[in-house]
């Protein structure tokens, strides 16, 4: 990876189920990444944020985990249904909704989360979710769709399907969509071909291919 600094970047892996350890790990990781002057403020802020966020919101998710076992047990071949065909996606979608409903994004309005698979079916359900889960009932500052448009980014992850893309594009717009392949689980060339054939303007295509990622991750 160090041999090709212009070709690779990376996300930190954190043990989110253990917020204290996750905070410590992030601090250590940041120590190696930022200049010395910034260290004390950045790491302190990051550690506090991490304990707060993962401690209060994320670990709560685990306790109220969606009924994955029932998906697994209701089918003779659980591998597909509970995993890559359906379960992984729907569980991630439920996870995102629970985060929104927990008020996490009201407390951390600048927090940005990147999810894959063209939105894990959330764009399809968005108008319905927005209609039923009204902010008054849920004691949120904004409609649920606002968080889905302002706090979440969406990547392809091998969902090289035009219909699914168009639904996401119509719901959240080009500013929230980013390119990804899901390599090596899905081939790079297939993803690149799909990107080239997107029915969008050149400007939107550039945002999706690199512009949004450059801004969000400062690449």
């Amino acid at each position: 990876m160090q041999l090709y600094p212009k070709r690779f970047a990376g996300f930190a892996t954190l043990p989110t189920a253990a917020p204290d350890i996750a905070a410590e790990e992030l601090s250590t990781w940041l120590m190696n990444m930022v200049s010395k002057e910034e260290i004390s403020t950045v790491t302190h802020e990051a550690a506090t944020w991490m304990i707060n966020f993962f401690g209060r919101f994320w670990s709560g998710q685990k306790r109220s985990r969606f009924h994955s076992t029932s998906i697994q047990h209701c089918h003779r071949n659980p591998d597909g249904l509970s995993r890559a065909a359906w379960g992984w996606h729907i569980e991630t979608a439920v996870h995102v909704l629970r985060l929104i409903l927990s008020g996490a994004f009201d407390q951390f309005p600048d927090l940005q989360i990147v999810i894959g698979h063209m939105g894990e079916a959330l764009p399809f359900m968005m108008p319905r979710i927005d209609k039923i889960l009204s902010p008054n009932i849920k004691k949120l500052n904004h409609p649920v769709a606002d968080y889905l448009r302002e706090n979440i980014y969406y990547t392809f992850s091998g969902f090289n399907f035009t219909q699914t893309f168009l639904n996401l594009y119509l719901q959240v717009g080009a500013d929230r969509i980013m390119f990804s392949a899901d390599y090596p689980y899905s081939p790079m060339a297939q993803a690149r071909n799909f990107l080239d054939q997107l029915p969008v303007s050149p400007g939107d295509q550039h945002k999706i291919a690199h512009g949004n990622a450059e801004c969000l991750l400062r690449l």
Partner: protein
Amino acid sequence: MIMENKALEKLSQLDNHEMMRTITLEEYYATPAFLDGPGRKLNEQAKMAKHFGYGKLIEELSDIGDKRIAEMDAADIDVQVLSLTAPQCSNLT
């Protein structure tokens, strides 16, 4: 806040598809220690699934060097933002 970025504004006005930089965001790697630890099950499953098109999975996950770069070049992908593959650092006990 992020949307007001001037670089993005400029991109909106582009009128050609040429010379497009490409960054991919959900791309995985694995290390030998990971494949012996939290990724042990993945390692075993990949070996069993060799006949289903995942024969090279472990090899591909483990390479963050020349072979991956060659494949990125062939597919016209400029940058990969890498993540440790599932189950990441779950199942450590």
